[in-house]
Structure formats: C-alpha cells, structure tokens
C-alpha cells in the first residue's frame, strides 16, 4: 500500500533506500523563505525610499530643456554653498570628536567595571533614547537661553554679562553632541564588552603599567568601536536639521537647513535636490571608508 502512495504523501515506510526526506524539502521551500521574510521590508524600502530617492536624483538633473547638470555646476561654483558644505563637514567632525571624548570614558567604565555601575550607566545612556529629541532640544533652549539656567547660575557667580549661548554654533554643537552621544557610547560599549579581560591581565603580568596596557591593548582593540560610533555619529550629524535650526544662529546654517530654505523660500526644487544628492554622495563615500575599517574589525575578531 505504501508503494502506491503518491510522492510527497505521508508514508510509514520509505519506498527506496535513500535517506528519509527532511520535513522541508530543500529544493523548493528553503531558498524562498528568506525572500518571504524580507518581502515586507523590500516593498517598504522600494516604495517609500528607493523610488522617491530616484525621483530626487532625477529632479536634480532635469531642467526646463531636459537633462542638465546646471544645478550641480551652480552648487560647486557658489562659494556660499561650498562654505556651508564645508561647515557641515566641520560641525559633524567636531561633534564626532566630542562624542568620542565624552563617550569613551563612559563606555570604558561601563564595560570594564560592569556590575551595577555599568548597568546604571548604560541605562542612563539609553534612557535619553526614550525622550523625544525635540523635547531634549527645547530643554537645551531653556538651559542656554539668555534668561536660562546657565546664565542665571553664571550671573549668580558674579559674571555680570554672561556670553550669549543660545542661537550660536556652540549651542547647536552642545545639542547635537547630547543627542548623538548615546550612539557613540553604545557602539563603544558593544566592542569593549567583547574585549577579553584576561588580555588585560596578561598585559599587566608581562610588565605593562595600567596606562601601557590601555594604550597597547585596550585602545587598539576598542578602535573598531570608535570607528563604528564615529561613522554613525558623523553621518547622522551631516543631515541634522531640527537641533541646529532651533539652537544655532543663522550664521551656523548646515546643509540640511540650506536644503529647507531652497524649497521653502526659493521654491528651487532642483537646487534642493542637487544638495540632497551631494549630501548623499558624501555619506556614501563615508560608508565606503567605514566598510574598509569594518574589514579590519573582522580581522581582529578571534
């Protein structure tokens, strides 16, 4: 009876001596499954990201008389635009450096000493993710305003004319550093946590002072975290709009703000699309650099 059953039907006895069939027939079902799992994401990304992105790119090269690179020419020959692009890169770099300087010690303490202190530190860092960053930006306005907390404290300490902080580049940088710091701390923490503590013991045992151990063992092994975190912070910072807009002054415009004013005030969609494309190109170039270092990270993983 078993022999007469159609292929694929359940049977207690195998009809030949080949190994029993797996429940999921490998030829058909398995290669399909990852695609099935990815399908919603693919539809989402294609419909809501890739298609509009192509639209923007198209917008940047289509003039009244068809294809033109006029807008790109205008961008790269206008010293004002280039200065803003340069400033955007410089601000992103500044914010990244400060995130490293502030984030490294936090991640170091959390990863090295662990326990309750480490958990508390990481909890505090992630907690800032739970607050809207708009709310956090407004909070900085309250703190840094001319009648704000900081100025009041400074006046209380006897500084009669405390400097203007709000609506300056400093305020914008402080706000962006505050918002991006968790990305840096978590990137660093993830890598530092993987560093085998016995390597540090081995180094000490071989005669290295704590500082030598840090410099020759811990720091190089945490470098992938610095690179990951920096790439993340730098790239997010390039496109930052709300925080510099609310905390910074008109002289601290970054490229995202410039794109906004191209559309809102000048209705120059082509120039705005061009700037967006340039920003995207810079970001992609940075990802290429990141990819290079990511390979290094792989190399170090034992």
């Amino acid at each position, binding site marked *: 009876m078993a022999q007469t059953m159609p292929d694929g039907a359940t049977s207690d006895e195998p009809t030949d001596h080949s190994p029993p069939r797996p429940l999921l027939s490998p030829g058909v079902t398995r290669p399909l499954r990852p695609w099935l799992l990815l399908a919603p994401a693919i539809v989402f990304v294609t419909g809501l990201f890739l298609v509009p992105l192509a639209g923007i790119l198209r917008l940047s090269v289509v003039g009244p008389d068809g294809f033109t690179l006029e807008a790109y020419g205008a961008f790269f020959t206008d010293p004002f635009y280039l200065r803003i692009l340069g400033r955007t890169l410089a601000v992103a770099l500044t914010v990244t450096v400060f995130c490293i300087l502030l984030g490294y010690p936090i991640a170091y303490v959390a990863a090295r000493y662990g326990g309750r202190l480490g958990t508390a530190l990481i909890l505090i860092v992630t907690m800032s993710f739970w607050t809207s960053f708009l709310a956090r930006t407004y909070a900085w306005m309250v703190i840094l305003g001319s009648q704000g907390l900081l100025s009041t404290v400074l006046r209380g300490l006897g500084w009669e004319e405390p400097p203007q902080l709000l609506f300056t580049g400093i305020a914008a940088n402080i706000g962006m550093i505050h918002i991006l710091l968790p990305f840096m701390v978590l990137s660093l923490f993830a890598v530092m946590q993987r560093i085998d503590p016995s390597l540090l013991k081995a180094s000490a045992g071989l005669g290295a002072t704590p500082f030598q151990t840090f410099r020759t063992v811990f720091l190089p092994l945490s470098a992938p975290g610095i690179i990951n975190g920096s790439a993340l912070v730098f790239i997010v910072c390039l496109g930052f709009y709300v925080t510099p807009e609310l905390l910074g002054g008109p002289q601290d415009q970054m490229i995202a703000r410039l794109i906004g004013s191209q559309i809102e005030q000048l209705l120059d969609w082509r120039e705005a699309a061009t700037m967006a494309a340039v920003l995207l190109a810079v970001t992609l170039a940075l990802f290429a650099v990141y990819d290079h270092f990511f390979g290094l990270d792989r190399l170090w993983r*034992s």
Partner: protein
Amino acid sequence: MHQPSPDPFLRLEGVSKRYAGGALRAVDDVSIDIRRGEFLSLLGPSGSGKTTTLMMIAGFELPSDGRIVLSGRDIVGIPAHRRNFGMVFQNYALFPHMTVFDNVAYPLRLRKLAPDAIAETVGRYLEMVGLTSYADRRPNALSGGQQQRVALARALVFDPAVVLMDEPLGALDKNLREQLQFEIKALQRKLGITLIYVTHDQSEAMTMSDRIAVFNAGHIEQIAAPIEIYRRPATRFVGEFVGESNMFEATVSDPQAGVVSTAIGPVRAAAPLDCARDAPVLAMIRPELIRPADAPPADNGTTLTVASIVHFGDRVAVEGSTADGHTVRLRLSDREAAALAPGADLAVSWRPDDVHLLVP
C-alpha cells in the same frame, strides 16, 4: 638536570582570601614553600581555591590575610606588572591585534630592549616552541595548541622569576594535551624555571610535578611528591581525588601487629600502628594492588562476587561485592580478567605493604 635548592624561594604564609564580608572563604590559611626551579602543581576540584591562590601570587587578587614572600621580600603590596612573573592562561590570552612575533616581543619591548636583541630573543623562544615559521601570523590563524605555545614563549621570553599557569591545557584535546605536558615539563627543566601550575586533572599533576599541593574547600590537604600523594594520601579526600581507591572505615584491633578490622575482614598493614586499640582509622588499598588469589587468606583478602567488568583496552576495571554488599574495585590485565564473568566468584588478596592506613 636542575636540582631544586632547599631554601624557600617563594613562600606563602597563612594566605587567605575572603569574599562577601568574610562570610565566604575562597582560600583559607594556605602556606606553601616553593623552591627555586621547582614544578609545583596546585591540584583540586573547581572552587577549591587553587586558581584564587594563583591569582594572589600573580598579583591580580589581594589576599585578605597572610604574606607572600619572594626571596625574603613581601610582595603583597606590589602590583602585578612589577612582579616579573610570567603567566599562561587557559584561553591563551594572546593579543589578537598583534602578530605572533609582536606578542612574544611585547614583554621585551616593555623592558625597552634594543630591537636587534628583541629579534634575537624572540627568534630563540619561537624556535624553542617550534613556531619560527609562524612569526608573522595573527593568533587567530593558529590552532589552539599553537596559540598556547605562543603564550608559553611569551611567558618565558623575559626570564621571569616565577611562571604561573592557570589550567593552560584545559581547552586542548587529549593527545595534544599530553604532548604539551611533555613540552612544558622539558622546557621547565631545561630553563630551570620555578613553575606553579594550576590544574584539576590529577594525571596532569602526577606526570609533570615535582610536588603537588592538593586543594579542597580553600585549604591544602597535602603537599608532597606525586608518588607520595598517590601511595600515602594524608586524608580521605586526597586518596579519593587522586587516583582510584578502595577506602574502608576500620577500627584498630591489634596496634602491635598492625591489624585493623574492616567490613571486608581483618586488614594487616606492614608496620605496627602508632594508635590505640579501637581507634577509628581508614584503610586504603589501590585497585591495581588487589590481586586475584587461589583462595582468600585469613587476613588481607576476601572472596568477591563479580558485579561489573569494564574494558579500557590496556586494563580492565572489575567491581566485585563482598557477601555483605561492600564494593571492592580492582584493576586487572586483559589476561587476568579473561575468565571472569559477572556473577562469578573471585578470591582476592593484597600485600601488607600495599595497605595505607590514615586517620580520618
């Protein structure tokens, strides 16, 4: 061959380590004298305090009590990086971002040796561990055994006062482990290294050590040469932890004649006993010293019913039970065990020399 000198080179005096406000004693009043050039194993089950003791010697843990004295100087307050001790870890702890050469050169660079002296010394030590052609590799391109050889070279290259090893072969398979045991022992002899070796593997401790300190529950049960530990364990724990044993509770029946009475009958030791009649003792006989006999003698022998026979290839483990249900373990050769079957009667005997009596 290097002769250990009798003066203590490294001395632990009443060293203790307490955790959780003193409630937990990881190490309890441990004292050891270690001679220069000696291979000392700290042997014990996990949690017995042997690794904590090693970490205190290395300077990674601070003793709660006691002194650690190196060549007459208390080193408790000296941080690990100034002790000049070589250390080998179970997980190798090689720096993954450095080549094999740079790993071995690391302690020499810290000591600011000239580059050509470093190259020469590192080359010599890499040759010693047979890894000359691997100098430019990264540790993760090496097998476990090769990685541990690099760690070994790195721990020896700066001529440390003492070398500490924390279960260095625990992650390796059996054949490789035995080969590296041999290599470590040969290097230790050749270089005259003072080596403290933590292991839970009693055969490893037996084959490599000049002396073994057997740890149990934070204290040392016995420190002695391996064969002494095996033949004359000081406590029941040592007798049962090191090797297989038959341990019988006994009372002294004739101190002069060295006879005690046990559940398997009277057992006679070779020498008179230094204890009172009816004193409780333990009689230990190693399984390989119990031999098949034609008929059970009046003392030092009994008749067993064979309960189980397990072949190990080179030997056969036989378990028998006495008439009143006490288990006796034997080690026989394949030929001796050939005629045996479960349920058969087996008369056995042992020599008075092979009886070890200990006070429980």
